[in-house]
């Protein structure tokens, strides 16, 4: 069991930590959650269906993230270990048309973190971590169609982010606010959900 447990840590540590870190954007919180997840794995080793270990771990991680977010409803208690988006946007605008890919990545991660659950969790699991729909279903206890609907909405919410839109316009060098507003209206208009 000890060897299998250590193998499980090595196999899933990145996935669990990444999920927590992209959800919270705080290294220490992500490490605490990773510890908590693998301690629970140890405590429940005998009870777990090891065929679905990935889904079990991600479910525990997901619940731990939600608990932490609930405990820290006061924004002053949150710890941010990443650069301030506004400062970066201003600096980029003043610097040049050449967009820093790293800055775009930071904006993207911040936008992911700003999403509500389950949009945030689903987009991390599916698009960042490449989990299968089946594993996401088991993790979040949803049907496949529900997962797809939430994923679609999560992507659309990301695309509605003004910060990401501005960063993309700078990146492509084709800033056209009028056209942008028109297209945005088209995207938002349907309200299919």
């Amino acid at each position: 069991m000890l060897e299998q447990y250590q193998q499980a840590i090595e196999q899933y540590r990145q996935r669990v930590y990444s999920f927590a870190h992209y959800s919270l954007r705080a290294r220490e919180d992500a490490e605490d959650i990773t510890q908590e997840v693998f301690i629970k794995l140890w405590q429940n080793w005998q009870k777990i269906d090891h065929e679905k270990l990935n889904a079990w771990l991600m479910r525990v991680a997901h619940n731990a993230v939600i608990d932490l977010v609930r405990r820290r409803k006061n924004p002053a208690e949150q710890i941010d270990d990443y650069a301030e988006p506004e400062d970066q946007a201003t600096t980029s605008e003043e610097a040049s048309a050449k967009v820093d890919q790293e800055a775009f990545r930071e904006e993207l991660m911040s936008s992911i973190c700003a999403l509500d659950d389950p949009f945030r969790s689903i987009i991390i699991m599916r698009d960042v971590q490449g989990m299968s729909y089946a594993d996401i279903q088991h993790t979040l206890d949803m049907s496949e169609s529900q997962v797809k609907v939430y994923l679609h909405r999560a992507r659309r919410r990301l695309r509605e982010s003004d910060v990401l839109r501005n960063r993309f316009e700078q990146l492509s060098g084709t800033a056209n606010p009028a056209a942008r507003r028109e297209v945005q209206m088209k995207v938002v208009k349907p309200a299919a959900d």
Partner: protein
Amino acid sequence: MSSNNESQCYFVQLQFDSFLDGELTGNQQEAFLQHVNSCAECAHEFRYAQTIQDGLMDLPLQDCSEEALAPLRDLAQGAAPKNTDSASASGSWLSDLAQWLGAAPMGLRYAFPVLLLAAIGLITVPQFLEQEQGTGGAPAIAANQPSATGTAPATTPVQYSPEDVAQALRDLTTALEYLNQAGQRTESMVGGRFLINPLQNRLNASFDRVRDNVRSEIAGEEI
């Protein structure tokens, strides 16, 4: 922009995710690409969606520091986690013992309670036997004491000095003498009452006198 193109743009932009996920059929893909290549606004929006999607997929898997994983390795090797906020992880020693037993091989898992019971027995049984032996091995003088119930007294026996024994023997002698004197008296039922011997002797003497008188009177008459 005509309303026809507008509706086409609307439906094409709804298909962005399906196209990026490869869920469109061949014909749908062809129609999609045809519109995107001919519509600058949809092409721009599609590049934006694709950029975000590529950015999401390019986000690296991040790794936890070894320092954060150290308590987990300690846990796996049988030691308690050193630094964790989890309440369940900092459970009592009983839960730690249960975890350790749960992780132990089957033989050891059952052998441990048996050994624990044997150890408790080895400690407690000799003490119990010693106590039992102490109550059964009391001095003879105490064992010979009469008991109302016939069972051994629960309290520890009283130790008597030789003086106490001599006094008890003197008291016993006095009691026996009294019983001998009392035994010399006999009781007689006279007129519904028990009478002791001295009184009976006097009564007998009276009867004797009466009897003698009666005999003398009879003799006198005969004369």
